[in-house]
Structures are given as C-alpha cells and as structure tokens.
C-alpha cells in the first residue's frame, strides 16, 4: 500500500457484530484516533467461513459473493478485526470462486485491499504506539489463522509493547491452538475441551491478568473455559486494549 489511506471499510465479522459490538466500536475508535475515517457497509453478514470449513461449498460461495458485493460499493481498503475471517477473504475466496471467473477476479481485487486489523495499523499505517493505556499484566496468544494464514504475529506484539502500563508476561506455547476451530468445538467437543484445558493451564501459569488476541472467537472460547474454572483471567481482543486511553 503506497499511500496511507484516509478511509477504510470495516468488515466487522458476524461474531463481533452479534456478540461483541463494543470490540467493533473499539476498532473504529482506534482508527478514528489515527485520523482514518471508517465506512461501514451495513448489509454485511457472515463471510461464509463456517460453511466453507464444514465442507458446504455452495453455501460458502453464496456468502462469499454477498460479501464481495457488499464491499465493492466502495474502493476503500477493507479492515477485518479477525485473522480467521481475514484469511477467508484474502486466501479462500478466489479459490472457492475459481469456476466463476467474474467473481474470482473481484475476489482477487478484494483480497489485495483487505487487511487484518493489526496488519493495517502496523504494516499499512506504520503505527505501533496508538496512545493506549492499560494497567496490568498482559500476555499474547497467537490465533492460528492470523498467524499461519496471514503472518500476523509481530504486529500485535509491537502494538502491545507500546501500551502504557501494560507489563508483558510470557505465555508458553503461545502459538498452539486453543481448540476452538469453529464447528469443531461442538462436533468434537471433548477433544476441543482437552485442547482448551492445556491452553488455559499455560494461561494461568503465565501470571497474566489479561491475554490479548486478534480473534474474538478464540477469546470467546478461552473466556468460556476460564469462567467455568472460576479464574479471573480474561482474554480480550487487542482492539479493546488499544482503544483504552485512560481518560474516561
């Protein structure tokens, strides 16, 4: 991205939209603080990844086309506060729509201007210190699709390192899956829960009060387990931490 964009479109993701709207607002707050205007095409729904991962290609294609249509009304770059949905749009759409040449071409064009939230901040906008303040011990867990699909790792770590008041904690095996995996978490619920237990043992051992992640799906999973074990540790989207400036 040669020119610093002055406006972006937000693909908020269906999970943030319906479960964690304040995280969506945190993303908007951080971007506006950096002087980037946010557009929100409000007919967006789901990117189609649940269907894609379950093997329902036709359903996934329908949602991919819908999302491409919704995000094509504007030519502004797209920001996604999720490595998982970001990977879907950036890497899977074009392959999924390979037999539909017009949409495949639009999918490639969309992929080229779509960025995961921390990638947009660090790689595109060149920002690491966004003026955030958060007091407490903070660890970082690397969500799988962002890490291995998009190469998101250094960006959130750099952003967190600039948060005033945050004392970094090391989370061992930070790049091992928490066991969410979408439908996997209920289809193979006991394996998923065993993976979560291993992850949460390490979270607790890290001594962190807050674990930052780039996907609310993983946060939802880990928080569900932490609540069930009666732990006070909380997992939060990195945008939630970056939005807080200390003035209320």
């Amino acid at each position, binding site marked *: 991205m040669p020119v610093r964009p002055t406006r972006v479109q937000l693909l*908020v993701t*269906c999970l*943030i*939209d*319906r479960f*964690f*709207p304040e995280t*969506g*607002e945190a993303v908007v707050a951080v971007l506006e603080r950096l002087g980037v205007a946010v557009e*929100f095409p*409000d007919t*967006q*729904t*789901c990117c*189609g990844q*649940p*269907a*894609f*991962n*379950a*093997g*329902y290609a*036709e*359903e996934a294609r*329908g*949602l991919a086309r*819908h999302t491409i249509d919704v995000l094509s009304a504007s030519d502004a770059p797209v920001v996604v506060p999720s490595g998982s949905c970001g990977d879907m749009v950036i890497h899977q759409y074009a392959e999924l729509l390979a037999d539909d040449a017009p949409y495949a071409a639009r999918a490639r064009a969309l992929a080229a201007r779509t960025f995961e939230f921390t990638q947009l901040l660090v790689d595109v906008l060149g920002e690491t210190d966004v003026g955030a303040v958060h007091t407490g011990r903070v660890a970082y867990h690397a969500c*799988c*699709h962002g890490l*291995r*699909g998009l190469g998101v790792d250094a960006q959130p770590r750099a952003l967190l390192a600039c948060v005033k008041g945050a004392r970094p904690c090391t989370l061992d095996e930070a*790049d*091992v*899956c928490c*066991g*969410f*995996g*979408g*439908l*996997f*978490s*209920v*289809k*193979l*619920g*006991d*394996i998923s*829960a*065993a*993976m*979560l*237990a*291993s992850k949460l043992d390490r979270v607790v051992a890290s001594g962190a009060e807050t674990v930052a992640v780039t996907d609310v799906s993983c946060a*939802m*999973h880990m*928080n*569900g*387990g932490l*609540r*069930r074990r009666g732990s006070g540790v909380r997992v939060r989207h990195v945008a939630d931490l970056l939005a807080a400036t200390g003035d209320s």
Partner: protein
Amino acid sequence: MNASAVPFYRRVEDALANAPMRRAVQRTATHVLHTRAAALSRLDDADGLRDRARAIRAHTLSQLDRYLDQFVGTLETLGGRAYFAQTDDDAVRYIRDLVRTRGLRTAVKSKSMISEEIELNPALEADGVRVVETDLGEFVVQLDEDRPSHIVAPILHKSKEDVARTFRDKLGATDADVADVPHMTQFARRVLRSAFLEADLGISGVNFAIAETGGICICTNEGNGRLTTTLPRVHVALMGMERLVPTVDDLGVMLDLLARSATGQKLTVYSNVLTGPRRTGEPDGPEELHVVIVDNGRSDVLGGELAEILYCIRCGACLYACPVYQQIGGHAYGSVYSGPVGAVLTPALRGLADFHDLPQASSLCGACREVCPVRIDIPRMLLALRRRTVEEGESPLWVALGMQALGWTAKRPALFQTAGRLAAAMGGLAARDGWMQWMPGHLGAWTRSRDFPVPAAESFTSRWRKRHPKP
C-alpha cells in the same frame, strides 16, 4: 487396512480417559518439536532446503511412471527383482508364495508402515512363519499384541514402566534386566540376536528408492535394519509406489530433512543404501532381493486434489505438532496412518465411508503445514475431504440444516439481524450474568465444559445505524 470396529467417538473417549498415555504423548511431542526446531536452525537455509525437497517430490510424482521404470531397470541390473502389487492382497500373496517356494521359516522385520498397511504379519503367521519385529518399539508392540501409535515412534503411547512390565510378563525378564532403559535395551538385544541368527527371511520397508542407481535407502537408529537386510538369505523390501527419488543427490536433500524433522537428529544413525543382493565373491548379503512396490490405491490419488499427500516422507513431525494428536494419541484415529497425514492419507486410499470422521478431527490450526519438511498443505486437503463428505451424504443432518440455514439467512441482511436478535432474546432467558452454562442439543457439547456468551441485545450494526442515521 480395515476400519476399526469401535466407532470414532468411543475411541476418542477412551483416549481422553487415558491420562498416562496422554502424558507420554505430550511429553515426547513437546521434546521432539524443540529438538526438531533446533536441528533445522543449524542448517544454513532450512527454508530453502524444504523448498528444494518439495520440488523434488513434486517433480518425481509428476513423472512417476518414468522413474519407476528406471528404478526397476537399474534394480534388475543389480540382480534384484521388482514386483508391482496393485493391491494389498497382491503384495501379501507374492510374499507368501516366496515363503512357500523358498521354504522360509523365520522372518525378522525392520520397521515398515506399509507392512502394517497390507497387514502382512498375520498372513505370514497363519502360514506358520515366525515373524519377529526387530525395531525396539515394534518389538514391544508385537509382544503386547498392540498397534503402533506413531509412524516413527511406535510406542509413543507407552512409558518405560509399561515396557518393563511387558518384558517381565512376556519374556520372563528379571528386575535387573529391566532396571533402566539401557538394561532393557540390552535385554531386547539378546532376545533379538538369536532371532537374527536363525532367520531365513528379512523384511524391511524402504525410506527412499533411488531411480538412477537402483538402490534402496533404509534408515534405522538401532542397526536392526542392517542385520535384517544382510543376514537372512532372502530380503523382501516393501515400498509404497511413491517413495522414489530420481538421484543420489536428491536422496541427500531428503535425508537432511528426514532425520531433523522426525527426531531432531542431523542424520539417522544407520542410513544405508543397498544396491542389489549379494554378488559373487561378496561375503555378506542376501541371496535374493525382492522389492515389492505397492500401489494399493495410490494411483487413484495421483493427479487428483489429494495428490500432494503422496509427497509425504513419513517423518511424523505433523503428528507431534498436531494439538489434536497431542490430546488423543495415534490409536484413536483407528487407522495405520494417524495424525494429520493419516487424516488425509487414510480416506484418500480407503474412501470416506469408513473414515469420514478423520478429516473432521482438526481445528484447521495449520501447525501440520508449518512443520512439514516438504510443506504439504494438509489443511487444504482436509477441507477438500470435508467437501467430499458433504457430497457423499456422510455429513450429519444437524450440520447440514445449520449450514443451509446460515447460507440462506446470511444472504438476507435484514433477516440475519432479526435472527440474531431472536438468538439474543432466547439466550438471555437461559443466562446468568451474560453467559450460558447450558445449551440444547448438539450445542451442549460446548457447555459441557465451557460457558457460552449470550449474544448482545443490540448488534454493532444496529448501534452504528443509530449513530449514523441515513439522510
């Protein structure tokens, strides 16, 4: 390679309940992953070497016919014989015929996954042949009438105490014999030595066959491969038809990565290349060498969307790296090949009817792809198999209904918002401070061990619209 009689969910339950097995698997997996990373980091350009290895595998498979022909030709020049087995039965029949016509009585075996795939041991034993596994791990598996749980480390699921018990119960070992691992190794060695001296048939796998020289490369860490392939008068080497490299230089690339990925070693201790049987004037070696090249479904995989799985060099790194394998071990997969590679290879070779659960047993985290020395994109193929599962009608009804409902409503933004509001209202009724401890039906698999959040009463979309009213 038949499907297990026990359903997948029961095998998973059993595995998750087996705490000692899970501890053993997790301890070894963590250790090997660290030594693997260290061994690779000592290479000047590990990533470049992996790219080269991948290119070699891709090239070899793109011209497999040619390289198989070349290999068979060079092997025969050296005095070896090749047999091309289309099915597992063909391979077993060929070896049984050899045993009968040559009057063979005792077989020593070094480790071979393909012998497990074609279920060779029971067939030979039914013919009255004594079969002795000489890889230490496989030796223990055989004594226990167990199955290997990892393609490189067959007794990954056992502790040293388990092995000591086996040696005591099955072989009458004394306390001194099983005092520690070196003593147990010496004990096994004494038992195996007599089998080696007695054997008239040696059965081995093949890590790589070299087309240009007709050589077969066999890697072992215990030296049992050398004895297996040189002492008995007949040597049968079993190989999957994809396990070829064109040249000796290519072999070098593969060996550099195989040991590092499998065990974190620079090189497997005994990496031997055998070129034909004993020649006139040579003191050692078998009188006959038969290389059994097994197809058993591989031809059908070549050229299709799963062909890349045949790049696999059986290092086992993806098993160690897989967080699912780390929890359930190898046996739960119910197939000879377990872990991520098995979840693709088994249904690729044997179909989805019996094995459609395996591609679901993944969170698609991608750790397997990250550690694969030849960069096989296993998640991509798991997704392809999930699509096939849907096409073949093996996907459960509740998933089908859920995904169709998602596909239908999410194309209708207003309806999608309404459905979300409805879910929020219903969830609110069942919740305590914003989280549910119980959910109905299949969703209960979540709340058995985790709380689930209630959807927000007002979505981001709705909040945005209020703050940004349209003119």
